[in-house]
């Protein structure tokens, strides 16, 4: 928080601003001190909070699952192993249902996406002013802790998935097969090739866009609601943000699940020959 009693608009603006580090035309390599400065940095800037928290969550995922995996017994599992195995089997089952080609990489991708996105989304349940307030005390002005409310994070993952789709489409069908698929569906006639191409390329490009924007939109909207609720007087705000947080437990899991399942479905499509 910026202290000295900000207006509602300032409060909201402040909460939606990432901690940006980049090359400013006037100040050189520095941390942006305002939203305007962050915009002026253009593309060559990085959101330290998004990167930091997403890496932290990803590392937490890898560390936790690796720890359990290393000690995994084939006998009676402990509580932690049980929980991890539950998530693992859930993802494995989902992949087995939706993905039928032979590819050993898809299940780990799905597991990574599901748990990583879930953990990043979960940060949203941390009270809205707690961590930003803490960082403000340490002299860090901006802190947006939920990486999935940053389109860079969600689109980054979605583009990763997009490249995987392209890669496997070409790997399975060959360049010719892939181009042929783009040219001859949905209408199998040479006269309609241009029309098919436009349709298929749009549908291909829409896949990562819908993936990334769906997750971003859901998380961002939820975050904004939390911020708005936080503007209410403290003695009434809990009546709204407690139900909203409980509701968000569902949204968090659901969005992680949707992202994962759609990724698996898209990759299945990439392995299919029409």
């Amino acid at each position: 928080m910026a202290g000295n009693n900000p207006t509602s608009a300032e409060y909201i603006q402040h909460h939606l601003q990432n901690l940006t580090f980049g090359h400013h035309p006037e100040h050189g390599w520095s941390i942006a001190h305002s939203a305007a400065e962050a915009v002026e940095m253009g593309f060559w800037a990085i959101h330290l909070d998004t990167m930091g928290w997403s890496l932290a969550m990803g590392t937490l995922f890898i560390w936790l699952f690796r720890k359990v995996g290393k000690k995994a017994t084939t006998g009676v599992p402990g509580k932690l192993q049980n929980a991890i195995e539950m998530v693992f089997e859930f993802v494995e089952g989902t992949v087995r249902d939706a993905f039928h080609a032979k590819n050993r990489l898809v299940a780990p991708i799905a597991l990574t996406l599901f748990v990583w996105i879930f953990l990043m989304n979960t940060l949203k349940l941390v009270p809205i002013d707690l961590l930003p307030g803490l960082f403000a005390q340490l002299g860090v002005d901006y802190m947006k802790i939920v990486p999935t409310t940053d389109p860079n994070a969600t689109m980054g993952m979605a583009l990763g998935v997009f490249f995987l789709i392209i890669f496997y489409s070409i790997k399975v069908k060959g360049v010719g097969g892939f181009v042929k698929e783009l040219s001859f569906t949905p209408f199998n006639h040479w006269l309609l090739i241009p029309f098919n191409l436009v349709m298929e390329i749009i549908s291909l490009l829409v896949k990562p866009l819908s993936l990334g924007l769906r997750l971003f939109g859901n998380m961002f909207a939820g975050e904004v609601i939390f911020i708005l609720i936080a503007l209410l007087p403290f003695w009434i705000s809990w009546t709204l943000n407690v139900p909203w947080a409980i509701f968000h437990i569902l949204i968090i899991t659901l969005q992680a699940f949707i992202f994962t399942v759609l990724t698996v479905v898209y990759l299945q499509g990439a392995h299919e020959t029409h």
Partner: protein
Amino acid sequence: MNINLTLIGQMIAFAIFVWFCTKYVWPPISNALHERQKKIADGLDAASRANRDLELAQERADETLRESKGQAAEILEQAHKRSNQMVEEARDTARQEGERMIANAHAEIEQEINRAKEELRMQVARLAIEGAERILESSIDEKKHRELVDKLATEL
């Protein structure tokens, strides 16, 4: 909310996490799960096999029991029969022995009687002769009358 380098950073992070997950996270958990699955399946298999074995053993035990019961009954019956036979035989022998002894006794008694009769006859004859001698004193020629007396004795 600006699109910037974070996008690339996130893609790289995604790639690294996927690689790490594929290499170090997925295999051990997957192995453990599948091994346990196999173990449980084996255990269930073994249990059902043991159950079948138990049933078989039970059946065999029942059969053996039934067989031995039958044998025991047979042996018992034979023993009964044999003992009955032995009793019967013993009774027969005893009866025969008794009969024989009775017959012997009878014969002996007969003999005794005959002997007593003979003696009695002799004594009677002598008494008769003595009596007659006393009556007739010496008037009787012993040789002469001897014949007569003997005849008398046999008639007695």
